[in-house]
Each structure stands twice: as C-alpha cells, then as structure tokens.
C-alpha cells in the first residue's frame, strides 16, 4: 500500500520533470542532419558567456557572503544571545523570503542610486539571507547544550565557541549554498541594476537573452543555444546542491537534548540590535514602505500623496487584477497540495532508504525555469496529448499545468524539509503500530502524518510563498498569464506604480496568508526559526 503513493510521486516526477527535460536535451542534439554536438562546441567556446559565467560566480560569492552575514548574524543573535526582543525578531528572519527580489530592487531604486555589482550583491544577499537564517537556526537548535557546557568547563569559552562553530557549520554552509544557487540563477535583479555603461552581466542574464535566439534564429545552433548554455549552470548548481545535501545530512535534531545556554552580550546588547534591524528593514521594510508610497501616489509629480489615492489604487488593483489575484491564490494552493502529495512519499523513502531520492528531487531547482517551461510546452502541446484533451479537457491551457509545473519546480522545498523531519521520527513508533496488525494506510494516517504535521505545515507555507512569486514559468505557460506577479511586472513598467504598489502589497499579504492562518487558528505563539 505504501508503494502506491510512492509510484504516483515517481510518475509525477517523470511527467513533469524528466519528460520535459529529456525533450529539451534530445532537441539540443537532434539537428536537421541527425545527431550533432556542434551546438555544444559553439556555445561552450563563447568567450562572452565564459566572462558572464565568471561574473556570476563573483556575484554569487559576494552575495552569499552578505547573505551569511545577515542570515547567520540574525539567527545567532536571536537564538543564542540576550538581544532585546530576540523572541519576536527570531521568527521574523524568514520574512524577506516573502518579498520577491525584484520588489526589493525596485524599492531601493526608488530612493537611492542603486546600480552595478555591489548594489546587486547587497540586495540579493538580503533577499536570500533567509535560507542561511533558517538553516543556521536549525543548526543551533540541533546542538545539545550539554556538549557546549562540557567544552566550556573543560577548555574555556574560546574552544567551546569553536566547537559550536564546527557543529553548526554543515547547516550554515548548506544555507549559504542554497543562497548561492538562487543568486546565480537570478536574472531579473542583475538586469534591473546593471545600468551604467557596459560593466558586467551575469550568466543567467546571458542565458535569458539567448532565448530570443530561439525566436529569431534559423540555425540549429541558435535554436538550441539556451538549452546548451544552461548546462554549465545546471552542473554547477547540482554540484552545490549535492554538497549542501551532504552537509545537511550530517546534522540532526534529537529529542533528548538541552538548548544552548543564552550568551550575554553585555554592552553590545543594544548596538547588536542594528544587524537584525538592518536585515529586516532592508529585506522587508524598504520594499513595503516604497510600495505603500507608490499606492499613495508618490510617483506622480505635483500631486501630494493621500489616503484617497491609496483607496483608489487598491480599488483599481481589485477591479483590474482581482481575477489574477484569485487565480494566483488558486494556483498557490493547488501547487502546495500537489507538492505535498508528491513530496511526502518521496521524503519518507529518502529518510528510510536512500539519499538518492533527495538528490534527484533537487534537479528541477537546478534547471532554469524557462527551460523547464518550454520542455513542458513540448510535451503537453504535443499532438498526441491533444487526443487526450479531446476527452479530458484542455490541460495545457489550464491552471492545472501551471500548478503542476510550479510543484515540479519547487520539489526540493517539499522533499528536503519533509525528509529531514521524517529522519527525526523515532522508527519504533511505526514499528509498534505495525505490530498491532493495522494496514499501512491506517498507520500512515494515524501515526506518521500527525507526527509530521508541523513539518508539513512549514513546508506548505514555504511552497505557497514561492508559488506566489514565480515569474519565469508564468511567462512561458499560457495559463500563467493570469497571475499577479506577471501583471505586476507589466503594470510597473508602463508607469502604473499606483496600482502596482497596491497589487504588490496584496501579493505580500497573500503570501502571509498561511502563516497568519496558523497563528489565528492554532493560537500558537511565534516560534523560533526552523
């Protein structure tokens, strides 16, 4: 019985990850004259792309360093020290993940001259620091305070702190690697900020611009250039993810432990508050304030901002984009449900038997979203698929394919945390349940799932947030047309900042929907990160 959900999950991965990527890969080696690797030779020798690849690595390293500073700094100060307000500030560390990086960039650009490499690194560092914050906090939580105390008594504070650093290193590095992956895959923010002359461009920008060759080109090399050019990036990301997974596997949270003792900051107690405040105000505060100002009419010259304008902006947003907002919420919820259905059996298998499942699950994250999207178009707009649609309805032109595509894209954000949670479950509970003679389904629903519920809910919140802010897949898939983030990117470009500000705030509120519901329905207090 356990095999059925696992088989369904594998079928989903085959249909929405393997098939589309295989279609694109075959496309890249199938020239009109037969099998050919000529496109690989041409693209991989391109000096411009090589330069962009190095620029991406530089940006990735600097932004990750900043993400570590903000993310680890936030986690350490709020979890480990007597920082004022640590209990409240700690859980807020994940909040910058709610704001799409392009909104952070737009927010900063509205009042400061943010351009070029360093600004880009800073903003991306802020945007992706939550990965470091969450995993560092998890690392700190996984350490038995008694070990630290023993080190402190035996060797003094310095060696005890070094021991602590060694113990949280795997989780912290894993967080940094996740941040690195997102930074080097990002093309919107570098393009938005690379404005002063020909200074530098990232590899993701280069690959993105190659997609236009698919439209304008005639030669096989041109048509497949984006697929081929994506390959080095995919390999780099898979390598980083494999390392991240190995690192994460080395740490685990056990039930029989004591928390780390709180460290006193002394006279640095209040000054240390600056770091979390800068992190949260940069990652969330600035974009939210700027969007609110836009909604109030700040971009219209010679017209004071007003509450009436705010009302008008929200009215306009609801009238023109209310349908998009509903579609976006529907897609977000469907993505979350589908992904949980797929990720739970995969995570269960990954926890008990094989880390290989985890490694495979991260592939969709390594592949550029546009590549996955065009692969899906190839497969699901195929004339063979059309025969099925005649009986079942047009899946290709439906929200269903968007939700499935998003679920495939965010697969690791379901599988990895759930596998990690599943590893922490004591095996003897399920074994005891099995001895009672009840079937696998009953054991799953009565024992396994209730124990996994907190992890399932955390994953659901994360997936929901990511689904609301996904743009690249929304651009490629027809039904992605009706999403808020796609409309937002247009509205702002064409001078509709009033409505754009209101729409962005609606999107942020929608992203907080699940976490807020948790608080309202369960009455639980804010919990520390992780």
């Amino acid at each position, binding site marked *: 019985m356990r095999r059925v959900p696992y088989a369904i999950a594998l079928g989903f991965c085959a249909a929405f990850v393997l098939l589309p990527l295989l279609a694109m890969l075959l496309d890249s080696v199938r020239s009109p004259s037969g099998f050919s690797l000529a496109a690989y030779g041409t693209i991989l020798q391109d000096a411009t792309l090589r330069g962009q690849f190095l620029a991406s690595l530089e940006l990735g390293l600097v932004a990750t360093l900043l993400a570590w500073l903000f993310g680890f700094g936030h986690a350490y100060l709020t979890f480990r020290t007597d920082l004022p307000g640590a209990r409240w500030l700690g859980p807020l560390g994940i909040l910058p993940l709610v704001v799409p990086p392009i909104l952070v960039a737009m927010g900063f650009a509205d009042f400061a001259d943010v351009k070029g490499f360093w600004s880009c690194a800073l903003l991306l560092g802020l945007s992706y620091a939550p990965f470091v914050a969450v995993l560092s906090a998890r690392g700190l939580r996984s350490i038995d305070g008694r070990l630290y105390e023993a080190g402190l008594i035996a060797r003094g504070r310095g060696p005890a702190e070094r021991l602590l650093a060694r113990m949280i290193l795997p989780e912290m590095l894993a967080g940094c690697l996740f941040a690195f992956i997102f930074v080097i895959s990002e093309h919107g923010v570098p*393009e938005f900020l690379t404005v002063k002359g*020909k200074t530098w461009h990232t590899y993701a920008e280069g690959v993105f611009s190659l997609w236009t060759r698919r439209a304008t080109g005639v030669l096989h090399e041109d048509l497949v250039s984006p697929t081929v050019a994506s390959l080095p990036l995919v390999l780099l990301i898979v390598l980083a993810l494999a390392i991240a997974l190995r690192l994460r596997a080395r740490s685990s949270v056990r039930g029989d432990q004591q928390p780390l003792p709180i460290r006193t900051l002394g006279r640095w107690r209040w000054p240390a508050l600056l770091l979390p405040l800068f992190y949260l105000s940069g990652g969330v505060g600035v974009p939210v304030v700027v969007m609110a100002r836009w909604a109030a009419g700040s971009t219209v010259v010679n017209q004071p901002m007003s509450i009436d304008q705010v009302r008008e902006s929200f009215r306009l947003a609801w009238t023109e984009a209310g349908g998009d907002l509903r579609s976006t919420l529907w897609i977000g919820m469907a993505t979350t449900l589908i992904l949980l259905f797929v990720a739970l059996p995969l995570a269960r298998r990954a926890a008990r038997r094989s880390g290989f499942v985890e490694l495979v699950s991260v592939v969709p994250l390594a592949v550029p979203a546009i590549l996955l999207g065009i692969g899906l178009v190839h497969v699901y*707009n195929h004339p063979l698929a059309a025969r099925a649609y005649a009986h079942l309805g047009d*899946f290709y032109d439906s929200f269903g394919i968007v939700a499935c595509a998003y679920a495939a894209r965010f697969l690791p954000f379901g599988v990895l945390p759930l596998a990690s949670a599943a590893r922490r479950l004591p095996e003897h509970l399920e074994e005891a349940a099995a001895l009672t003679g009840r079937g696998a389904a*009953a054991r799953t629903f009565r024992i396994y799932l209730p124990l996994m519920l907190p992890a399932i809910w955390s994953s659901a919140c994360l997936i929901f947030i990511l689904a609301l802010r996904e*743009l690249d897949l929304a651009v490629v898939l027809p039904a992605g047309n009706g999403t808020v983030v796609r409309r937002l990117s247009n509205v702002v*470009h064409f001078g509709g900042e009033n409505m754009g500000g209101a729409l962005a705030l609606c999107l942020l509120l929608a992203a907080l929907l699940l976490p807020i519901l948790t608080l309202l329905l369960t009455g639980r207090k804010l919990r520390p990160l992780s």
Partner: protein
Amino acid sequence: MRCAAAAALTLPLILAAGCGRDADVTLYVALDQTHSESLIEQFEEQSGLEVNARFDTEAAKTVGLVSAIIEESSRPRCDVFWNNELAQTVRLAQKGLLEAYDSPSAAGIPAAFKDEDALWTGFAARARILIVNTERIPESADYPKSMWDLLDPKWKGQCAVARPLTGTTLTHFTALRYVLGEAEFKRFIDGLFENEVVLLQSNGATMREVAAGKLAFAFTDTDDYHVALLKGHPVAAVFPDQEEGAPGTMLIPNSVSIIKGAPHPEAARKLVDWVLSEQTEAALAAARSAQIPVRSTVKGPEHESILQIGQFRAMEWDPKVTAENLEKMAAEFAERF
C-alpha cells in the same frame, strides 16, 4: 483505507478542476495589457465572441509570445498574433508560421505598412524619439536634434539608450545598420561607448532616468514618453534626424497576423478586421500608449508633442532585411553591449 482512497483521488481532482475550456478565439497580444485589455473587452461585447487573450511581459519581450508561437507550431494554439512591433512578426512570416489574410479593414492603410503577401498588416505606430528633461535643458534651441547628438562630448555620460538586445531598440539598431551602412553604423556604436552613453535595460528605464532628471536625454518610444507626460514630469519629445540628408525618425507599427493552422480561422479573421479598424486605431491613439495612427483619416494622440504621420519625416527601413538580420545583429550586440 477510505482516507487513502480520498487522498489518491484528490490529486487528479485538483488537476481536472484546472482544465480549461475552449474560447471562441485565442489572441496573443504583445501590446501592454493595461492598454489592450479594455479594447479586447470591447471586441467581446461587439462581436459576442469570447477571446482567450494571452499577454506578454515587458521583461520577457520576445521570449514570451513569439517563442510560444514557435514552440507551439506543431499544434498551434494561437489564432491571432497582435505584436507591438514589426520585425519579430516578419521573422515569423519568414519561418512560414503565418497565414495570409487581406483584411477589408486594412484598405486605408498605406502599402508601406502591409506585407505584399498579406501575411501581416501594420497599424498604430510608435516613434523612436529622444526624450529630453526640460529642467536640465530648459531652452528648446539646445535640445538634441539627431541620434548623432548622443556622441557629442557636450553630453558625455548624460544621455542613454536601452541595450539593443530585444524589443524596439534591437529592431531600431538593426534597421539603422542597413540604413546608415556598415561603416557609419560602426562609427555610431563606437561613439556610444566613447561618449559613455548610459546603457539601460529598457526604454521604460531610459524614460524614468530622464524623467527623474538623472540624465539629460535618451532614446525611448513615444508610449513611454507619454507615460512620463501623464505623470507630470518635465519632459519634451524630439523627433530626431529631420534635417536634409538625415535618415529621419523611425516609426515602428503594431502588426497583426493570423497563425498558420489557427484553430479558429473564421473568428480569427473577424478579430483581425476589428483590430485593423479605424475605431481601434483611434482608441489606441487616445489611450495611455498614445500610438500614432498610420492612416491620416484617424485622429492622433491629444498631446501636440506627439506628431502625426505627415508632420515629421519617417525613416525608410526595410522590415524584411531587418528581420532577416535580427539574429545576426542580436548576437553581435550581445558581444558589445
């Protein structure tokens, strides 16, 4: 067991619930959604046909709709492609993806804006103009007059163009290459770098930098310029290169075409007739995008600074040559910009 069955059923139910239904006609429209959405609603009301409209994003440019048409060519989903420029449409025609249709609504449109095989028809154009910040350059006599003013040391580091990798700037620069000739065009491009002309990611960005007073002037499109005007920014428009011997101002029309193998050909023709009607062109002129009608019989944009056809000299450019060389030039520009 019941729970398991319910869980197993939920996934297909979610997928089935998302399955779409067939509209009367599918339109891919690259003109900004804000501008085109209300017009499409008008068509639905007038014709009684339901339109499944798919819009592009400014950031995606050709990656969106043109790529979608190409990717879907084995089984076309789009009936009508309404592009906000011309070169990519001509490229689709050259790839054999468009169906000929000589719309009766296009009778009044000059031949220069129509394909000789009726694969596409141009209408409602944007001009490639210089947007000037009137606080930085108060006297109109001091305004730049030509694209060559970007190379004037007086404006070093104070003017901008969008990177010519996509959109209207790619079309503009590719057309310029064949209008000016290779040597002159190379001189122009080299001069942009020597004079530290600021390279931005889009025409919207060049407009914003000039509107905010960060730059003195820049190349942009008339629709972006009109947005700056509506927001009250101190800007003026210059239709460049009007003097004798200069190439003139480039005009880039919208274009509409029917996709070969369109699933709803009859409705597609009705939609094209409506898109090419004088009424639609007038509505586009009156909208925020302030498109310039290609027919002199249609009323143009309200604001006098956006000139009408006949009030300025338009650049003569060959859409076919431009489209044929778009890929080659895009690759060259990608190396330099």
